[in-house]
């Protein structure tokens, strides 16, 4: 039997994204900010007005169909993010998905956005290549480390749909901490990527920050303390009157190390507490930092475990990972909602795995 075709929609945050998959293969994946001239900047401050999901969604949908070279009749199922996220954003995607479902009689599967990030390493490109090309049955149990601007969490995964959250951030998410330190350094928004870039040029050990949650016994994270430490350290350095250029790279280096160390301590602890796992899945926009991706890879492989990470375009929010979850649930025998069943579907802004 030919693999089923799933349309995935995500409007949980800044971008409107729609993708079409055949099985785990991505036929098309459109993110609204890509529909602009390369090197665009209009969408940088991803505030509400510029999100414009309502304005974007039809165009993104048409582009996804066009690029995938499929018709609406080929779609076997629609997968839609129903949480977590901002209520007014989620509503746009859900309304659009319900409309499509009703109009074309296509079953609709509500998907947890975080499950999308979690399974994103299992996406394959249009030619069918990726990190896990064969069966995924022997992958689990694994751990998952998910880090973005909104989330930082660590989970145990015993199979598709079988998740147990082991720890999460108590305050800021890791990506948010990067952006806020960028702000403290007067970089503009979003400063996080610049902090990562500048850290490359910095020397280790010149500016040292405390390692958050080093001595806590659980698997939770906290980054607000390091934010305060960064604020004070920057004030101190500025008061010394030294040229910003002289210390800013070392400052970023120190900050990135401290964030990495604090997460690494928790990930190691989780790995040691879960000796039966076979690998670690990672996902989320923080892994756009090649350094983060590489260093966690080294840590995981150091335990002789497999390391699974998404391709660059699937690290941030995207519709492909939502379609993937939809497909994997279908394979597990789950059925989508149709007709009257759709009425009960509503956004759940605080949805958790």
């Amino acid at each position, binding site marked *: 039997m030919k693999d089923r075709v799933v349309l995935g929609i995500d409007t949980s945050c800044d971008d409107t994204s729609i993708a079409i998959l055949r099985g785990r293969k991505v036929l098309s994946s459109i993110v609204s900010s890509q529909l602009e001239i390369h*090197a665009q900047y209009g969408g940088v401050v991803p505030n509400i007005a510029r999100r414009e999901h309502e304005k974007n969604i039809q165009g993104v949908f048409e582009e996804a169909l066009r690029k995938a070279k499929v018709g609406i009749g080929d779609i076997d199922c629609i997968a839609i993010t129903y949480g977590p996220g901002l209520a007014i954003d989620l509503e746009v995607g859900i309304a659009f998905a319900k409309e499509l479902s009703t109009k074309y009689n296509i079953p609709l599967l509500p998907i947890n956005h975080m499950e999308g990030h979690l399974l994103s390493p299992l996406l394959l490109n249009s030619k069918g290549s990726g990190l896990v090309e064969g069966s995924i049955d022997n992958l689990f149990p694994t751990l998952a480390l998910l880090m973005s601007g909104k989330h930082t969490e660590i989970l145990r995964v015993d199979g598709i749909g079988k998740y147990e959250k082991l720890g999460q951030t108590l305050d800021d998410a890791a990506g948010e901490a990067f952006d806020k330190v960028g*702000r403290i350094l007067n970089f503009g*928004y979003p400063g996080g990527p610049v902090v990562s870039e500048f850290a490359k040029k910095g020397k280790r050990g010149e500016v040292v920050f405390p390692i958050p949650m080093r001595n806590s016994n659980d698997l939770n994270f906290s980054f607000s303390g390091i934010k305060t430490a960064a604020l004070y350290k920057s004030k101190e350095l500025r008061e010394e009157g030294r040229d910003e250029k002289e210390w800013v790279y070392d400052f970023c280096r120190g900050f990135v190390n401290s964030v990495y160390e604090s997460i690494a301590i928790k990930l190691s602890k989780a790995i040691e507490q879960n000796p039966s796992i076979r690998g670690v899945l990672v996902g989320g926009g923080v892994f756009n930092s090649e350094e983060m991706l590489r260093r966690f890879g080294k840590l995981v492989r150091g335990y002789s475990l497999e390391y699974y990470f998404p391709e660059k375009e699937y690290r941030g929010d995207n519709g492909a990972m939502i379609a993937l979850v939809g497909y994997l649930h279908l394979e597990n025998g789950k059925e989508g909602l149709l007709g009257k069943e759709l009425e009960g579907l509503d956004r759940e802004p605080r949805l958790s795995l």
Partner: protein
Amino acid sequence: MERLIVNNNTQEVVKKTCEVLSKGGLVIYPTETCYGIGVDATNEKALKKLLKYKKFRGSKPISIAVSSKEMASKYVEINEMAQNIYTNYLPGPITVVSIGKGNLVPPVLSSQGSIGVRIPDYQLTLDIIETYGKPITATSANMSYKSTPYNIDQLRKDLPKKSLDLVDLIIDVGELPKNPPSTVLDTTLNTLSVLRQGKLEFEQAIVQNKKIEQRITKTPEQTTKFGYDFSKQYLSKDIPVVLALSGELGAGKTQFAKGVGEQLGVQEIINSPTYTIINEYKYSDKTLAHMDTWRLMDDELSKSGLIEHLEAKNIVVIEWADKFYQEIRSLCDNMNIKVYNIKFNYLSLSEREITIYEG
């Protein structure tokens, strides 16, 4: 189309390029990140030609390249944040978004009135722009979805004939190092003047308010405890109120909100709403809304979902409330909702002074 191979002929290249630019021509030029496509950014006709080259869809903007901060300041407002970037980190692979001065048009000007400006770290290109005396467009020379152009032969292969035919000059310096595209930094959000203005309005408002509680906390836990105690004494799940929080990054706003939520009976971990904008927490039969205005711009408060929460008579905790203090205040007054203003001050690295005013 002419292809100029660059070796020791810099002067000739600069001269020729300026001639082409002044006639409204399209030039493919090198930068430290990739080959870009440039036209005179002040020439509307040339910009139209560029859009044709790019097979432009939608209305998203194109950034410009200048040779100096002085040139940039003719076209954009350089605020304190932008000043920092220009002074310390440019030329380099950073595009700085600032508010335009009104002398440039779309697609260089965005619909929000902002312009992205770059100073490429590539001497030949800087020489060209400096000599030309005006900014040129700074967008990569490839089509959307095609790979970043690091060498001319690859680029020519990837370009549709229609686009290639529009090119007047190619400056070929050979294979460029494979550096990532420039990082875009927006300096128009939360400018110091906006934050100062908000803080001022907030502080003027609380002068008239009655101070009801004040505590100095020495740990995050103590800040959370203050939130808990305040909630216990002053809040009731059936009476809608707004807690308007004001204080610097890391001053303890989220810690305080944790305590409020915990006392109300929220079971989940309450964490930062900065990215989601509003987090909703269920407790008994009610919802606690925890909001952060940090990522909202001027007129966006009304579109955030805040009004819906006020209408639903939920308790709403708002971080960075000072940014929108007037709006929040008048919304609450109109709907007869009580406001508590809560101010967070840093006393030292670990000490905070938290003061609560009855609005």
